[in-house]
């Protein structure tokens, strides 16, 4: 690997990076858009919390764990 070719991960058993996973599991408009949580919580609450969450993860993940 010289660094000029693609870094390609073709092993389906390999874990998805947490960042990529959260991008997809929480991202706006990504994955089924229905907020079933509506029955438990208001739609607005869910949307707002998820946005706040992403922001907080971004801040938190720069800290050494």
């Amino acid at each position: 690997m010289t660094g000029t070719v693609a870094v390609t991960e073709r092993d389906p058993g390999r874990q998805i990076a947490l960042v990529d996973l959260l991008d997809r599991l929480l991202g706006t408009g990504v994955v089924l858009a229905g907020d079933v949580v509506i029955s438990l919580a208001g739609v607005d609450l869910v949307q707002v919390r998820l946005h706040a969450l992403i922001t907080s993860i971004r801040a938190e993940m720069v800290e050494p764990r």
Partner: protein
Amino acid sequence: MTETGRYLYAIARDLDPQVLAEVPALAGGRLEVVEHRGLTAVVSSVDLEEYGEDGLRRNLENLPWLEEVARGHDAVVQATATRAPTAPLRLATICLDDDGVRERLDAWHDALEEVLDRVEGRREWSVKVFARPRPAQVAADSPPAAVSGAAYLQRKKAETQAREADEGTAVAVADEVHAALAARSVAGRRLAPQDPRLTGRADRMLHNGAYLVEADEGDAFATLVDELATAHPDVVVECHGPWPPYSFATLEQP
């Protein structure tokens, strides 16, 4: 006595529930299916103390909890998606009971069928393009002696122009890579580039692409990525997959 809700992981078609027997559910639970009108929802019971409105509000702020749930959710989606057409649900999608799950399957039925038709026999690949940091060449090019103010300003201006040209080239390359990959996929999407603090690398992410690719064309797709990376040594290309079709299971409804 604690109240429980039904956590939804994914909705599939033609899923044999037996394939889920060995897959762990969240919170030490057991995976079950709710079948309705030809669709199969993969669910497990969760404690509403932890997964109800108040619990979620508290726990979603807790990164270790979030990671555990995201990993557990993904493991179930992966197990399902490798065996049947699957529409993954967003994290923490919870119904009060199985009747609630069936109501969802009713409400989403036609849209779900469309999503499952779209993703059947296909997998998602992630391709990211990063700007390669510009090597510092100023020190080598310029004499160590003092330079005049005008010469200094001129050099600064040239550096800025060169940097802007690099940026422009890199963005154009990212567009080109995306176009080439989209042409070879069933569908392509550009996700928001990730923050450098999250990727843990200094290089700026120019492109965060997701591609829906026929399951048996994964190798050809990865080869194309390699070719594109070789053709564009001025950027760094990263490719990961195959994954469940997370980015292509969006319902076309508000």
